[in-house]
């Protein structure tokens, strides 16, 4: 049993550090399961999963401090630790690699000393899991990237990354569902609309989803774009 370390986070918040998982996919999906359980409780304003943590903010008018701490501890202890094994849905993402849609693609090939075809094959062969949403609206962390593809963030983040952009940072690949500032190395973009502001669930991704990338041409990118309009 790995008892979580729980620390205060602000005047009405706690954070549980999660340990004992062998991969970020496993710990991130566990953290999301804990956060989801917490959000169903009265008095919980926010429950936010990180890769290896769960932060909770509570409303002191509805929940005592000790009760809030206990609630986080219980959720962490009572959530099954093998949640990552339960798969929800599979999402196929068409992606146009390089060119105007992947401004960091060529530099990454040079840096990793691999051909364009090899990078595309490496990135699009493995199925990924959505580890968590966060940072920007609908931004997803996907894991884990093949060892040969890992690369650090850009030194200077871009002020704007377009919606649908697919990037690499560390041993994650990620998708920007909406435009955002960002420091991930952008290797391609999907023409799919990943956001619908009129929906209760505005983003197509959920933690646990399996994601597969399918390489497409710029022509196919344009055709899919037009078909969605």
């Amino acid at each position: 049993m790995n008892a979580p370390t729980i620390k205060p986070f602000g005047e009405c918040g706690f954070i549980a550090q999660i340990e004992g998982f062998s991969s970020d996919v496993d710990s991130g999906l566990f953290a999301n399961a804990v956060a989801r359980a917490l959000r169903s409780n009265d008095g919980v304003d926010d429950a936010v999963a990180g890769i290896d943590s769960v932060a909770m903010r509570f409303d002191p008018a509805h929940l005592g401090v000790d009760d809030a701490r206990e609630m986080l501890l219980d959720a962490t202890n009572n959530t099954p630790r093998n949640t990552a094994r339960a798969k929800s849905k599979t999402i196929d993402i068409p992606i146009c690699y390089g060119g105007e849609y992947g401004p960091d693609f060529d530099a990454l090939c040079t840096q990793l000393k691999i051909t364009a075809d090899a990078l595309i094959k490496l990135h699009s062969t493995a199925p990924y899991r959505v580890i968590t949403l966060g940072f920007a609206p609908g931004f997803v962390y996907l894991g884990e990237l093949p060892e040969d593809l890992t690369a650090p963030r850009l030194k200077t983040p871009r002020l704007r990354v377009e919606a649908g952009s697919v990037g690499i940072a560390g041993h994650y690949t990620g998708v920007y569902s909406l435009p955002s500032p960002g420091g991930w190395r952008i290797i391609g973009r999907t023409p799919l609309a990943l956001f619908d502001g009129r929906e209760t669930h505005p983003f197509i991704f959920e933690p646990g989803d399996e994601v597969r990338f399918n390489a497409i041409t710029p022509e196919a990118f344009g055709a899919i774009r037009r078909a969605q309009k």
Partner: protein
Amino acid sequence: MMAIATIDRPGLQTTIQDAGRRGARHLGVPQSGAADRVCLAFANAAVGNRWDAPALECTMTGPALSFEMDIGFALSGADMGALLNDEPVGRYQTISARPGDRLALGAAQAGARAYIAFAGGMAGFAFFDSVSTYMPAGLGGLEGRALRTGDTIGSRKATMMAPVDIPDTLRPHFGHDWILRATEGPDTESFNPKTVRHFFSAPFKAGRRGDRMGLRLIGAEMISEDARAMKSSAVFPGTVQCPPDGAPILLGPDAQTVGGYRRIAQVIDADLPLIGQIRPGDRIWFRRIKAQTARQTTLQRQILIASFVSDFSLR
């Protein structure tokens, strides 16, 4: 939708903001909302709106606009020398405008943000029960962006209440020095105790490049003793995080939902509205207080304001 006014000059960054969107951080959606929610509440209350109705948030230099309907409005926050048809107008009170009247705000000398509330509130694109503008992703407000010359702002015609007289003693007066009370952050222990003492006693200067996401703090370097990379973990408005270059970032209302830098402090909820008034070059001190004291302080402040402005909440 009735047109309230047309924008003649947009100001530096004028956006529609309300109290922000709650409970969507797990989707990566920031809170947003007025950077100074006390002043948002005062402008709204002064014109008879619910405290959290959408209003215009003006940054550093305010807009000029021409009214298109008979409507009451109220100003609050930083003094931007507002003129109605070239005559000075006061803040924290209802002022009546007629079609063709021209309201012009200039540059603030102290404080960074002013609010203009219109009787009945404002229309905007709602997302998670809020029309607050979040510019990076183009959410909320008017097309998710700052106002431009030629834009029309629309009224909402929400239920009105009796306008509230905001007492002088409650109206904020801004200088260039700020004391922000803060509790220790989840990673404070990863810093040398000397560094932590320094953080909670020495002044910082607000950097040039500040926006609604965060302010850079210039001063002593705050470097964690734990050099290991941190995995992405939650941050909130008011979190002070320390990137490896040592210059802390004080996060604002548009704070991202997770970050990878160590968190040395968390500004208490009662003092979050002050962050919205800090200008580049202003001096900031952080005062360490315990979580229990912070809860009491926030509660007392909230009760005081809510005794004038119904249902007001600092959270």
